[in-house]
């Protein structure tokens, strides 16, 4: 059992709000005991993401995060209107996650996008999956998807999810739970990175 794999690490680093969000979308009721809740969410995520037949002989914490991400990548590409990207070389989780973020961000606004904007956003997302573009540095890169994101009222003052005119797309089957849950796990990563950068900046003052 990969008791300390990336899913566990993210869940351990998650805030109460992040855990609550994952539990809501996975429909897994938390009991308020951290270790048990983390195991519960890991189990729920992998069970929902895995094939029901294979789940029968697979350990409940066995399904790897990268495997879940591969399915989410395909789903995100489909909703962005792009072909599934080629994945070359060994998987690098952060690159996969950046692709998912960029594709879903574009998918939510693709109704307003021109074919050129779609092609540019796709190029950027595919650069991310090869590690040539990072969401963490998107605000210094002048990227197209960043411009799309800038059109949203980003964090703070814009907390009413769904209060904006976005392209609401339906996800098939369990993907309607897996995709939001994975988005929250990515949220954990970027929040942690941001907090560390702020701590470093504060310490150096």
């Amino acid at each position, binding site marked *: 059992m990969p008791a300390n794999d990336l899913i566990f690490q993210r869940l351990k680093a998650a805030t*109460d709000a992040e855990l609550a969000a994952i539990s809501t*979308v996975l429909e897994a009721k938390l009991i308020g005991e951290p270790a048990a809740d983390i195991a519960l969410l890991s189990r729920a995520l992998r069970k929902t993401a895995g094939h029901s037949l294979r789940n029968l002989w697979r350990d409940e914490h066995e399904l790897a995060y990268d495997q879940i991400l591969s399915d989410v990548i395909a789903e995100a590409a489909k909703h962005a209107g792009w072909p599934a990207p080629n994945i070359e070389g060994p998987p690098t989780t952060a690159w996969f996650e950046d692709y998912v973020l960029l594709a879903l961000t574009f998918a939510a606004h693709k109704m307003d996008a021109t074919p050129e904007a779609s092609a540019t956003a796709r190029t950027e997302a595919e650069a991310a999956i090869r590690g040539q573009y990072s969401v963490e540095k998107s605000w210094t890169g002048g990227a197209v998807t960043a411009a799309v994101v800038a059109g949203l009222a980003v*964090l703070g*003052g814009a*907390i*009413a999810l769904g209060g904006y005119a*976005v*392209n609401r797309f339906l996800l098939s089957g369990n993907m309607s739970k897996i995709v939001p849950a994975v988005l*929250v796990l990515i949220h954990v990563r970027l929040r942690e990175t941001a907090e560390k950068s702020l701590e470093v900046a504060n310490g150096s003052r």
Partner: protein
Amino acid sequence: MVVDKWVFTASAKWQPLVRAGRVVLNEKANRLIWARGSRKFVSALVPSHDLTMELARAPLAPTGLQELIKLAPALQTVAPALEALQVVSAIGAAASVANLAISVAGFAAVLARLQRIEGKLDEMLVTLRGDLADLAGKLDDVAMATLLAGRDSLERSLAATAEPERLESARRARDRFQDCRMASLALWRRTVPWLNPAMNVATVLELQGRYVASAIGELQAAFILGDAGAFRHVARTTSADVRAEMMMSPVSALRVRTDAALKGLSKDNFQLLAGEVCGIPSLATQLRAAGGATTASANRLADFEDDADLPELLGAPGHEILRAMRDAPGLDVYALGHGFDEDGA
């Protein structure tokens, strides 16, 4: 603004105390201050050895300000004001006066900026609770009117030819700026902006900018009124307010916003979340810059204390100094920080 280090230095008289650490160079104000206790003004700086050598090497010994500023680019922006004050030969005083020059011109630019954003604060605060939004809307109109009236009174004071009118206008300006400053502080205390996820960073900085702009206006008015004690009091209390009330923990400010962004997440509304997650690095950048801007504003307000000595140092009344500084072109705004620059300096 820091004048190039090779241009000015402590005079020989003060060098032993500098070496002993009893007096230090206040780079922001370009003067010597006591290292401990009051940290009050000790002495203006004098031309450094390097500058003296540069002047000696010149084919025609330049003694005027025009020649000096060619050697000290940092002084170029305040040259017209220095000329107006006829402190051409008082190089040390020229260095000292640079701080106030920026302060005054900065204030004019702040007011110009406030005019451009008039009425925006209530729009920005529309997401607040109903009662606070009402308060913010009313405050926005009243505060802008008060700020503009304060500016008008301040300019009238500077234009006045008779002493009673000058002082009366300065008093009115001081009171109006003080009212506006206190109103901004009251709203700040009620909204707790850094820990309020409904307020984005731009709105928080806007509110903080109102406070700082009002404080600077109050300082200008107090400078004209000529009571050094009252002037120092305003500088101290406004700086203390910014430090005590408006400083923040960037990590807490980020956390409260990222957590709030997840509220209400469901499989039916997750589409927006990807964009919100993409925005986290940007939010961190904004908060880092906002923290720097807040610190810079507090430091600058505190530095105003040093300006209390200028009328005595320059042998000119406050309104004449302000008038000369107001007319110095090309100076930058510092009071609100620099938007989203990394260091907020």
